[in-house]
């Protein structure tokens, strides 16, 4: 009798389990495929097949979830982040043209000890008083060979402050940096690519900073970048070291990088230093606009074999050696 009842219970349990499982799975599919607003495309998801709510902090969770497996994170809607997105090796984050608000004076992304990462298709929104660098590549003092930052790509990123446009005046000046490569004495930045990036009203558009005589940043590519009103468009802020030292920023390419001068512009391409940096189709636009300009182009005496193909040059201070121009009707 007990055996018979056990068998009946078992049969009913199996039937119920199978039925529930079927209904559950069908229900899941129906929800994912047909619901217009409640599906995975509007969430944060990654290529491991995991999903998170649209909370900016979950972007980092989705990245970290990929571990060393490498893969992609898709951001399915507008987010707000309260701390910088820390890139990891071999991951891609695709914002799919959605807005990212920075909650606080923070960077949008930070690459430190990171290779082969990609960030693309983001509209980064900042507010008045922002000072942090938006795209920040960082090498700590003593960062070794495995810690170098290389082969990362930043593509299709639009940085702006919605309140900065003043009709009839232009973009008000802010104190942030668009793209910042900061080497505090680590090994190197190598072959990072910045492509199709727009920014407005910046203190410095592209800031190559190296305050110590150690490490280098070579072969980075800055391509199709629009810096719409700036205090300094591109700045090589590099320590002055022994002339025999071959470190700092060398053989970097700036291709189709254009800046629109504002009344508050002071420098265009500033203090180019070291070896073989290449400026092709680079333009500091309307250098008549600044009220207290210094130079639209300046090259330090420790620069050599710089190549410049500008659309025009208004006021250059070239102390470099063997500077090469595609044509030089101005000097």
């Amino acid at each position, binding site marked *: 009798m007990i055996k018979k009842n056990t*068998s009946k219970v078992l049969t009913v349990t199996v039937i119920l389990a199978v039925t529930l499982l079927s209904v559950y799975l*069908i229900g899941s599919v129906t929800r994912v495929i047909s619901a217009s607003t*409640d599906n995975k495309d509007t969430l944060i998801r990654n290529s491991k097949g995991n999903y998170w709510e649209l909370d900016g902090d979950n972007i980092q969770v989705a990245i970290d979830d990929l571990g060393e497996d490498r893969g992609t994170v898709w951001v*399915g*809607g507008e987010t707000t982040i309260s701390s910088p997105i820390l890139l990891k090796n071999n991951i891609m984050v695709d914002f799919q*043209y959605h807005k990212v608000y920075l909650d606080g004076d923070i960077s949008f992304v930070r690459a430190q000890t990171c290779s082969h990462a990609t960030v693309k298709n983001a509209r980064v929104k900042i507010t008045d008083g922002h000072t942090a660098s938006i795209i920040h590549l960082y090498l700590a003092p003593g960062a070794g060979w495995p810690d170098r930052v290389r082969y990362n790509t930043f593509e299709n990123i639009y940085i702006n402050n919605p309140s900065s446009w003043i009709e009839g005046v232009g973009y008000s000046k802010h104190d942030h940096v668009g793209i910042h490569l900061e080497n505090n004495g680590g090994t190197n930045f190598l072959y990072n690519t910045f492509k199709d990036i727009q920014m407005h009203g910046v203190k410095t558009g592209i800031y190559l900073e190296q305050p110590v005589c150690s490490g280098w940043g070579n072969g980075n590519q800055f391509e199709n970048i*629009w810096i719409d009103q700036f205090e300094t468009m591109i700045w090589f802020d590099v320590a002055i070291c022994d002339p025999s030292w071959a470190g700092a920023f060398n053989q970097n390419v700036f291709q189709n990088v254009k800046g629109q001068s504002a009344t508050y512009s002071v420098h265009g391409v500033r203090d180019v230093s070291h070896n073989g940096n290449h400026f092709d189709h680079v*333009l500091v636009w309307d250098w008549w606009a600044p009220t207290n300009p210094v130079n639209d182009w300046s090259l330090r005496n420790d620069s050599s074999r710089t190549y410049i193909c500008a*659309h025009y040059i208004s006021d250059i201070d070239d102390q470099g050696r063997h500077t090469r121009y595609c044509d030089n*009707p101005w000097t």
Partner: protein
Amino acid sequence: MERFRILLVVSFLVLGIYLVGSVTRSFSDSHDTKESFIRNSNGKYWELSGENLQAAIDDLNDEPGGTVWVGGNLTVSSSIEPKSYVMVDFQNNLVMLDADVPFLEVSACRFGAIKNVKVEVPEDYTSPVILLYNPPGAVWADRVRYMVFENILIKNPSSVSHEYTGIKVDIRTSNMAINTFRNIQIENCKNGLHLKSPGPNGWGNGFQFENIWVDGFETLVWFEGCGIANKDFNHNVFEAVKGRASSWTKDGFKNINGQSNHFDQCGVSNWEAASSPNYDWSISGSAGTAYICPTRVHSISDAGSRTRFCIPGLR
């Protein structure tokens, strides 16, 4: 009774496995998943049609912005109008135009993108495939800017009809700036690129035309300008813009105007195929400090001032 019970259990198991199998099929079969629809990053889906593509774009327009994915081939009979902050990824699908209208009519928008599409034009097509224009009364805020057009193949299967324009930028009034065209191929056309600024009220500056291949053309790149300094087209970059001449070819880079336009790794091949050519390079009298680094020059007419060439002795 016992047999009936076993039969019942087996039936439910079979049903369960079937349904679970259906679920698996829904995700893995390419014919009935959401990837084969038009969908957008608002999480919405539409059947594949030109009208629905516009609906998916408009659903994102400006606010909140986002991405539209096109999951299959489309037929388009009225122009698609891109919107600000919206990227449309055609995922290498084919768009067949079945009317003589532009595929894209781009006005009053910024920071959007059109990517990865093959467009096939119909017989006797005369419109521009991609048209950027400022409507009458356009003001500064309306200017088309920061748009990206990338990986676009324009196919013309006709062997006799080549009256259309690949890309036309028609300023009309106000201005346009900082738009990018990259990796574009255009087959058998009248004009590859047509840059038009017919009046003194506008200009087009800071465009980037990169890796453009025009296979068969009457004019490869045509600057149709007003001839007024600081109007027309200025400080634009043409990088690896190349064309292969055909029997009906007349001009390569025609009537270059404006200030400091840069041409790097640009040129025309197969020039000898043209039956009655003019020049592969001509620079108008209103042009200043054009920079030309050509792959090849066959015949040049340079009325510009301070034209710069990267090849010594070319001029």
